[in-house]
């Protein structure tokens, strides 16, 4: 397919690896922010092509992985409520809550549906006027405009039976939190390409200045990532710390102004709890006051006991780049994609699931 295949050229990839090797004089640690980037890095074995002194750590950019168990529990409780159709992106169904997952609710007769687009929920709501249709709105800035449009359009259409359970998170605050965490090892970032298609990359400029780290906004194909890595190493070697845009075909500095305008209208910025990382100030969105009638948390008003999760799971340290899946005693044994203990094993973009799929899990990759 055009704009995909040409960024998978083997010869150019190998040359970029040689170029990286040629300019690197010291060990460096680079974090790719997005789960999609992690997936490509593992799928194409990119780590194995790079010099050993160049360490890639895998970041928190998988929204499925960072959605707190308490919100999953709330989704499960709403999905179990009488007269509810609960709609979600497919990846969320197998995320373990304290006691079960959304797929269990479906197996027990709950009306849980997978949708491709949040707009699909509006059709369901129109076809089932006497049923409450709830959409589980998760995702980063890439997904938020689609979900914002679903609510905006629901208001336009006068739908009173459509609600959103919102757990949106944003990238710049978590990048800052990683840099501020004690023991941080990350010296440069491959920035989130599609998030920046929406938001542009101005938000990352103060981060590079304040923390002295290069951030190279990168795409998701092997050549994108290798070029991004090359530019990170080049900046690190020269002692520079700037935002660079590798993903020129899809990102510009201002971003998509129309999408940003709707985000501002539909959502308010709030503090959010991140699974494995804890609370991060001003790191997410909730529905704004003028869209409160669509807020599932307000409509259903569900009180639940504190969330519980598997004590053995180290996904928090994995999301901060402090540990690798192979450091976890449960990896590939008690915890597998079929029976995940933690969120990084659930989503196809989760670091543990990518390792399980593309690397032999009994090897020591540390």
């Amino acid at each position, binding site marked *: 397919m055009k704009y995909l295949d040409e960024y998978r050229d083997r010869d150019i990839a190998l040359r970029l690896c040689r170029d990286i090797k040629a300019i690197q004089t010291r060990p460096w640690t680079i974090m790719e922010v997005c789960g999609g980037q992690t997936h490509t890095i593992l799928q194409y074995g990119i780590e194995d092509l790079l010099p050993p002194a160049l360490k890639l750590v895998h970041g928190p950019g998988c*929204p499925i992985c960072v959605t707190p168990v308490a919100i999953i529990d709330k989704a499960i409780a709403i999905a179990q409520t009488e007269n509810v159709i609960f709609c979600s992106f497919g990846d969320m169904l197998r995320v373990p809550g304290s006691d079960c997952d959304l797929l269990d609710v479906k197996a027990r007769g709950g009306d849980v549906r997978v949708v491709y*687009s949040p707009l699909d929920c509006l059709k369901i709501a129109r076809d089932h006027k006497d049923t409450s249709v709830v959409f589980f709105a998760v995702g*980063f800035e890439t997904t938020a405009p689609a979900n914002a449009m679903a609510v905006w359009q629901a208001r336009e259409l006068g739908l009173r039976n459509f609600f959103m359970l919102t757990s949106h998170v944003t990238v710049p605050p978590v990048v800052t939190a990683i840099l501020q965490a004690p023991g941080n090892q990350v010296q440069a970032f491959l920035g989130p390409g599609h998030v920046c298609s929406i938001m542009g990359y101005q938000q990352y400029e103060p981060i590079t200045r304040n923390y002295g780290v290069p951030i190279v906004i990168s795409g998701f194909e092997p050549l994108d990532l290798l070029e991004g890595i090359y530019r990170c190493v080049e900046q690190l070697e020269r002692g520079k710390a700037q935002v660079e845009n590798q993903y020129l*075909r899809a990102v510009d500095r201002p971003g998509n102004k*129309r999408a940003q305008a709707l985000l501002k209208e539909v959502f308010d910025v709030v503090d959010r709890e991140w699974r494995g990382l804890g609370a991060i100030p001003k790191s997410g969105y909730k529905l704004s006051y003028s869209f409160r009638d669509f807020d599932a948390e307000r409509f259903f008003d569900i009180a639940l006991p504190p969330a519980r999760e598997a004590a053995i799971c180290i996904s928090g340290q994995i999301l901060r780049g402090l540990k690798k899946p192979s450091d976890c005693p449960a990896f590939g044994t008690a915890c597998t994609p079929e029976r995940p203990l933690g969120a990084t094993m659930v989503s196809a973009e989760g670091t543990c699931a990518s390792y399980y799929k593309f690397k032999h899990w009994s090897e020591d990759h540390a």
Partner: protein
Amino acid sequence: MCLAVPGIVEELYVKDGLPTAKVSFGGVRRSVCMTYTPEAQVGDYVIVHVGFAIGMIDEEEAANQLKILHLSGQLADELADGDNSNEIS
């Protein structure tokens, strides 16, 4: 989750008051909401995420970048002629 795929706009229309397109992804066609890229025309490439075009592919930038990647490769190969530094170690 932030997976977004480039596709070509084949047809533009309005659905429920929203600008919409039939977009082809290597022959697989889907209905895509164009509200965030109303400037896209039939024949343009857009990047699609959860049924929304989140941006247009800048075809000029894409062509330039690929040209540079290919050219610098040829240059590296020419420079490497006569020594072994081009071999993968």
